[in-house]
């Protein structure tokens, strides 16, 4: 579509094509939607074709859901716009609501595991008539008495709630819930209504997510609103075929002539055929106006801690090995540059000049006033000096074996990195194993190991602002710093993380890292491999716009907020998410929908300037009942966790914990209020869309980030907090409330198809309680980047033999970190389940097999967060506590 030829002279059509269509169109249901575009010619067609397809697709098993998952993302393949695939995927999305509905009712009785229980406990509140219940069920508005419903977790995966805009085309065009989520799918019309519902209002976004289908558009003019600079999107209103009304600021703009050209049919006419109007996630290749300077090359600099602790941990072996293997896969074009600096109590630079037979090491001892030992050859073109770089990587692991230097001058190394890269910008990767204790930004150990279990946690704030100030300098030179922390002692993550948090970087933490420990080294290898090869966007900015009357209030994530709606992201990576709190400033009762638009402008590793635009449209409602029943519990939890991190750092941990409980109480109270039941006999009622909220909150209170009473290292806690701030929602939920599956009877479970269309037996999710752990079973817990296979002593010998290749329970080793591949069906089923679970993660999870009598079983048991542990309430006690408070 780059070829927007003006060869065909514009005929008189453009105006005439749109209008007759508009007249032919039957009045739309509802009729009052201002964003409904007048001319969507194929609307009637779609309605007709849908009916047979429903029947075709309909089946009681979940087989087809997998297909939906596979191409959930409804856009056109990159660079290729043809109407066929788009139409198809549009259907898929339209089906989803209905489909999920059907599936729910059909699979419930069939879902093997503990269905009888499940149905038995779903005790719908007593004082509603059967008719009412039926209706409520139909609309998904049934409510649950939480205290009576022991098994509240749905057996299947929880999908993002559907947004209904009263128009199928708009519904289909809306942004995918995996990219853009709002805490409510219907926006309350005023701040006071929002306050009455007590729900937090905000959006979570995962803007640079890896997508399988994305329409990329190259055009001369990117159509944007002249007043607020909003990109044209599916929710704008076409006044006539030459003008469009912005859905964010309501200004009427002219439509450029070339926008009426349809690249698919190569004709002029109705603008609604354009990909910009059909899909709300779109990528533009930006023309020169969007560049302040020529696109930067990909520049990667690695800072390696080589102090004694670092050498002992042995991370250099893994680093060199993985980087050597993946050097060719580093994203970048022919201009790509790399460099290395090692640091202990001094800085070791490596000159990779042309003609050298091996890398030339230069040591700079003056760390208080850092200078670069030579002006060039520290950052070199990778393609030209591939041999030298490989040579260096081969030497690195053993090079510092004899050093006994205990100091680490991280601050000085970062200053040197900043100086080296300030001309180009790029990515700095830091490996840190010990506390930076010399030179600028030196720190002292602040943690008191005796206080690890106390109720009040100190030292969550940074000790100094050196790293933050340096991060801001880096940010203004388009440098992002990523941290890989492979510590065995306290390294003060609270302070050094500043360098990543404000420069748009990311932080990986491998506590107690030792090269010899299989899980940790596998985890580092996997993360590093993903990190090196994943997509990267340089010199990025992201702007979030929203409809007039609303405003973005607070931002969560790793970036620097440069103005009220502009985030500066020197690097953007596909594994980080962002959150924004939103406030309603004006009454929204005169509009039907509100929109949020996130536009991410970045330079791709190939040196192209691109803009990725996501638009989310939400309807506005005026009643408390509607608002509460539109809540998205997972998104609420994601936002609350971010807010709680801020609260714990600024105020105190106990404040944050209290706030969590208050949120649960407030929301359930306001729900009770909205039901208008008068005095209810006992029970703790929650709507379907919020029934898991108390469960997740009680899980959060036991999470590493917010727990008290259990010994938690300060670094681990701080890192867990930053993960709350940056993890995209699905992974965050998984780390808060891991998925637990029974795997001893996989052959009885239902079958779904994975992306390769192969059948996978997927068991239902279990709640995290030992009540459901049977002594004759085997259970797989998936916490996101780590899986645990828990083998109980009574498990059948057949299972042990077929799946794990051991004759009996006693022969099972305590140190087993992979599932052996054995030629039989049971083993195949287990492995394909694990592969299926891994397929949606950024990198493979590590796996550990735990026997129920081994000392490491506590790793598994402490994640059964519904049970009572020493100092924390069980889920049931937590509910009773809430019930006592709900008015």
């Amino acid at each position, binding site marked *: 579509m780059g070829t927007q030829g003006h060869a065909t002279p514009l005929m008189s059509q453009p105006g005439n094509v749109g209008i007759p269509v508009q007249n032919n169109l039957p009045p739309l249901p509802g009729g009052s939607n201002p964003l409904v575009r007048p001319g969507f010619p194929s609307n009637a067609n779609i309605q007709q074709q849908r009916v047979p397809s429903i029947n075709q697709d309909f089946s009681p098993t979940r087989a087809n859901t997998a297909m939906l998952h596979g191409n959930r993302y409804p856009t056109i393949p990159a660079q290729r716009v043809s109407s066929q695939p788009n139409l198809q995927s549009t259907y898929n999305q339209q089906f989803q609501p209905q489909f999920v509905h059907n599936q729910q009712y059909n699979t419930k009785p069939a879902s093997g595991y503990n269905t009888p229980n499940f149905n038995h406990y779903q005790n719908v509140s007593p004082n509603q008539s059967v008719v009412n219940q039926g209706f409520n069920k139909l609309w998904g508005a049934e409510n649950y008495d939480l205290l009576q419903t022991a098994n509240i977790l749905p057996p299947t995966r929880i999908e993002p709630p559907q947004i209904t805009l009263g128009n199928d085309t708009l519904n289909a065009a809306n942004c995918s819930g995996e990219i853009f989520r709002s805490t409510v799918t219907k926006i309350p019309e005023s701040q006071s209504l929002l306050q009455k519902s007590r729900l937090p209002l905000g959006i979570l976004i995962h803007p640079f997510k890896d997508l399988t289908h994305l329409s990329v558009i190259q055009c001369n003019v990117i159509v944007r609103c002249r007043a607020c600079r909003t990109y044209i999107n599916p929710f704008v209103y076409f006044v006539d075929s030459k003008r469009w009304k912005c859905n964010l600021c309501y200004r009427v703009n002219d439509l450029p002539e070339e926008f009426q050209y349809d690249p698919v049919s190569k004709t002029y006419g109705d603008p609604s055929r354009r990909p910009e109007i059909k899909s709300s996630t779109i990528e533009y290749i930006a023309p020169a106006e969007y560049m302040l300077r020529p696109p930067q090359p990909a520049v990667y600099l690695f800072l390696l801690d080589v102090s004694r602790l670092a050498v002992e941990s042995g991370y250099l072996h893994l680093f060199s090995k993985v980087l050597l293997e993946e050097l060719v896969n580093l994203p970048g074009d022919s201009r790509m540059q790399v460099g290395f600096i090692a640091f202990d109590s001094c800085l070791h630079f490596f000159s990779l000049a042309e003609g050298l037979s091996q890398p030339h090491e230069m040591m700079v001892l003056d760390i208080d006033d850092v200078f670069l030992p030579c002006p060039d050859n520290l950052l070199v073109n990778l393609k030209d000096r591939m041999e030298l770089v490989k040579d260096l990587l081969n030497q690195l692991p053993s090079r510092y074996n004899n050093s006994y230097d205990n100091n680490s001058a991280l601050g000085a190394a970062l200053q040197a990195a900043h100086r080296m890269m300030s001309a180009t910008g790029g990515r700095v990767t830091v490996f840190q194993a010990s506390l930076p204790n010399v030179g600028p930004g030196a720190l002292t150990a602040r943690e008191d190991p005796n206080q690890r279990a106390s109720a009040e946690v100190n030292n969550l704030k940074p000790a100094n*602002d050196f790293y933050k100030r340096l991060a801001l300098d880096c940010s*203004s030179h388009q440098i992002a710093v990523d941290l890989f922390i492979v510590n065995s002692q306290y390294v003060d993550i609270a302070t050094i993380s500043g360098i990543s948090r404000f420069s748009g970087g990311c932080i990986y933490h491998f506590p107690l890292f030792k090269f010899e420990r299989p899980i940790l080294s596998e985890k580092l290898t996997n993360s590093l491999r993903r990190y090196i090869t994943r997509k990267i966007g340089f010199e990025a900015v992201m702007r979030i716009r929203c409809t007039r009357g609303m405003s*973005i209030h607070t931002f969560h994530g790793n970036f620097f907020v440069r103005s009220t709606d502009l985030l500066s992201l020197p690097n953007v990576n596909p594994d980080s998410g962002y959150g924004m709190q939103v406030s309603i400033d004006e009454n929204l009762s005169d509009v039907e929908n509100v929109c949020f638009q996130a536009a991410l402008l970045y330079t791709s590793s190939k040196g192209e300037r691109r803009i990725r635009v996501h638009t989310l449209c939400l309807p506005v409602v005026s009643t408390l009942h509607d608002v509460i029943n539109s809540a998205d519990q997972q998104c609420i939890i994601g936002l609350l966790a971010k807010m709680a991190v801020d609260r714990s750092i600024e105020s105190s941990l106990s404040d944050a914990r209290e706030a969590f409980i208050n949120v649960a109480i407030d929301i359930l109270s306001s729900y009770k209020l909205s039901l208008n039941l008068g005095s209810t006999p006992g029970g703790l009622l929650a709507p379907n869309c919020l029934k898991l909220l108390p469960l997740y909150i009680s899980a959060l209170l036991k999470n590493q980030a917010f727990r008290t009473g259990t010994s938690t290292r300060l670094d681990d806690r701080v890192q867990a907090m930053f993960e709350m701030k940056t993890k995209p929602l699905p992974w965050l939920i998984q780390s808060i409330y891991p998925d637990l599956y029974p795997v001893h009877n996989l052959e009885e479970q239902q079958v779904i198809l994975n992306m390769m269309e192969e059948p996978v037996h997927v068991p239902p999710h279990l709640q995290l309680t030992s009540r459901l752990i049977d002594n004759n079973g085997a259970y797989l817990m998936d916490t996101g980047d780590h899986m645990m296979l828990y083998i109980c002593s009574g498990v059948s010998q057949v299972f042990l033999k077929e799946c794990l290749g051991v004759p009996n329970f006693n022969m099972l080793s305590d140190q087993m970190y992979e599932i052996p591949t054995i030629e039989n069906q049971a083993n195949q089923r287990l492995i394909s389940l694990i592969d299926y679970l891994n397929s949606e993660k950024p990198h493979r999870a590590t796996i550990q097999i735990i026997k129920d009598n081994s000392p490491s079983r506590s790793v598994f048991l402490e994640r059964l967060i519904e049970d009572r542990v020493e100092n924390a309430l069980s889920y049931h006690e937590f509910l009773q506590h809430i019930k006592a408070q709900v008015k």
Partner: protein
Amino acid sequence: MAFNFSAFAYIIALIVDAFLIFFSLFHVIAFDELKTDYKNPIDQCNSLNPLVLPEYILHLLFNFIFACSGEWFSLVLNIPLLAYHINRYRTRPVMSGPGLYDPTSIMNADVLTKCQREGWIKLAFYLLSFFYYLYGMIYSLISA
């Protein structure tokens, strides 16, 4: 009519207060600029931070003179603001230089509104106290 120490205290307070009015005006304008995206938060914080301590010290200075001259009523009027200043500086974010404002948190809507409101309230307070000091000065000049 005589020139005594309390009259001197009021004259100093009057002059210093005039400066403080300008300080708080600058403060209000600076935050308005931030809100309307005219300025980069890093630059704005760099220009605001050096002014925080001088403002607090000037305010402390004339209150000290009030205490010396025994103008207890005027001192009591200022004590809440003094306490606020001390508390505000004590709970400032971790930073190496002097000042209060951190470019990474200043764009947070809560902080921004709070700072803006603080500016307006201080402006009003300084303006009102300006007239009060004027009155105090004339009163102590003619009464003695």
